[in-house]
């Protein structure tokens, strides 16, 4: 598909400053200084909203609402965070988000790896047709499904349940396609050897294919998790009960109630941002590489 879609090859580490940098930039000093300045300026612009939000969240409500260009206008206080945590909604929504994103990831990865392996190695009838339909469905924008899916949930009496939030999110034809491409590149000899030794098909899958596919499976899992954690439209439409809401949906509902209290608004936004930022810091290399490994990554 492109230079980025080479599934098996592990990515090289980021360039070592000395060797590749001089190949890329030449030996002059000026290009290096200009690149440095541009990077610093862009980084400041990109971090500024975070810095401003953090500063505001550490102010009292009155200080946050006083004018001035300096983000810190009065004494620092964690009052906004305490008030939000006391109210308890946000911890409830965070738990819901973890539960829902976790379930979506678990089911999607299980169902998609099995299917991808079946498509990659299977010889059963109808395999080609089913695969073609799956690949074609990648083009369908998920928003097209919102209205009929909602009717379907009404029909199943599932509106305002975890099942309604989770189940429609586990269909990931793109992920099946990415995994299948990876399985196709694994040599068959290992599996055939195990088969001759009498291992069942499921056993072959679990103890040979999956361990060999850890990088791609974790890449898929990370992107499914990020997608599910951040998904807004579907959970927003299918949940009205505040106890079932995910973080993004819950935050949208409180916005109207105390949107004027910017210290609290920023504190809750930052609390909601924290989990994935922490995940990123832990898995930085893996996330960066997985964009390359999967070729496309997210939904």
């Amino acid at each position, binding site marked *: 598909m*492109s*230079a980025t879609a080479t599934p098996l090859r592990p990515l*090289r580490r*980021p*360039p070592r*400053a000395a060797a590749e940098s*001089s*190949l*890329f*930039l030449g030996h*002059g000093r000026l290009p290096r200084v200009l690149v440095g300045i541009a*990077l610093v300026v*862009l*980084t400041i612009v*990109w971090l500024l909203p975070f810095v401003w939000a953090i500063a505001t969240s550490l102010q009292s409500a009155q200080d946050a609402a006083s*004018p001035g*260009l300096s983000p810190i206008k009065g004494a620092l206080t964690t009052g906004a965070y305490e008030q939000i945590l006391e109210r308890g909604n946000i911890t409830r929504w965070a738990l819901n988000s973890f539960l829902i994103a976790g379930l979506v990831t678990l089911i999607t990865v299980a*169902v998609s790896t099995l*299917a991808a392996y*079946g498509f990659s*190695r*299977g*010889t059963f009838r109808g395999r080609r047709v*089913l695969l073609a339909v799956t690949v074609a*469905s990648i083009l*369908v924008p998920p928003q097209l*499904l919102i*209205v*009929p*899916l*909602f009717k379907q949930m009404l029909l199943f009496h599932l509106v305002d349940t975890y099942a309604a939030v989770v189940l429609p999110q*586990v*269909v990931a*034809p793109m992920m*099946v396609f990415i995994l299948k491409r990876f399985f196709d590149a694994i040599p068959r000899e*290992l599996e055939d050897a*195990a088969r*001759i030794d009498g291992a069942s098909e499921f056993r072959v899958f679990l*103890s*040979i294919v999956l*361990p060999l596919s850890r990088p791609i499976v974790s890449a898929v899992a990370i992107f499914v998790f990020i997608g599910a*954690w*951040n998904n807004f*439209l579907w959970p927003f439409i299918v949940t009205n009960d505040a106890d079932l809401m995910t*973080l*993004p*949906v819950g*935050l*949208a509902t409180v*916005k109207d109630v105390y949107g004027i209290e*910017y210290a609290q608004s920023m504190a809750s*936004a930052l609390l*909601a*941002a924290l989990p994935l930022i922490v995940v*990123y*810091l832990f898995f930085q290399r893996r996330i*960066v590489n997985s*964009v*390359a490994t999967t070729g496309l*990554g997210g939904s």
Partner: protein
Amino acid sequence: MTTTAPPGAEAVTGPAAGRPHGLGRKGLSGIRAAKGPGLVFVLPFMLVFALFLVWPIVHGLWLSFTDSSLALRATTFVGFDNYAEAFGDADVWTSLGNTVVFTAISSIPLVLIALAMALLVHSGLAGQWVWRLAFFAPYLLPVTVVTSIWMWLYQPDLGLANQFLDTLGIGPVGWLSDESVAKWAIAALTVWWTVGFNFLLYLAALQSLPQTYYEAAALDGAGAWRRLWSITLPQLRRTTALVAMLQVLASLKVFDQIYILTKGGPNGTTRPVLEYVYDVGFTGYRLGYASAVSYLFFAFIVVVSLLQLRLFRQEG
């Protein structure tokens, strides 16, 4: 986990390969043909696929030919009435125009800035993880976090944007309330939020470029600009085609941030097609009509993707 595969594999390959009689080449391929994962492996996926993707698509298509409503009453078949109505509906055309404008003013910077960021980071200056974190972190934020932060930045009296203009002696701007400004303000927020993903795609492409050209250029004494224009950018053309295509498709489907920030206002000037579908279907209860509009929009997206494919194929 990883260590189990190679030794186990050796153990099973050993006897099979060393077996002098019994299974010859023919026998081995015979077993291969007979076995292999069956339909069972594909079934769980096919089940959820049929239930939550195929059914809604078919059902939605049916709905678009009815006057189905969220209100409880009998549904009747209306043929192509919804489609005919959609073509004459000024709101459909306005929201389609808004969507196209948003796609243009967001996609172009989303591709160009991502490319610039990747080129700068790939130059190999120290502090790699800082640059990557700064550019990619916003992509990890849920939409409501992004809108909360930017609503505060765009706040008319106290927000950073207007406070900054104030120190320059420029009067306050209604970032989200001024008809001529709101779409730019939303595009800026979208660029900040999602540029990180394109940035990573470009970075991965840059890291897989062969070194040989650069080595040759170094021998020839080509300067940094020359390398950029004659080596790097030409080799990134396929990646740019991919990034641009994905970006246009993503931008066409915009809904979340606009719905939360402006509800399509001021005066419907930022309302995208998908918000019109939502308004008609869930606020106006007309599910049948909403389905018809979304199927027309789907057809539009398919046409746009086919045009893009042709365009890029000619380029390549």
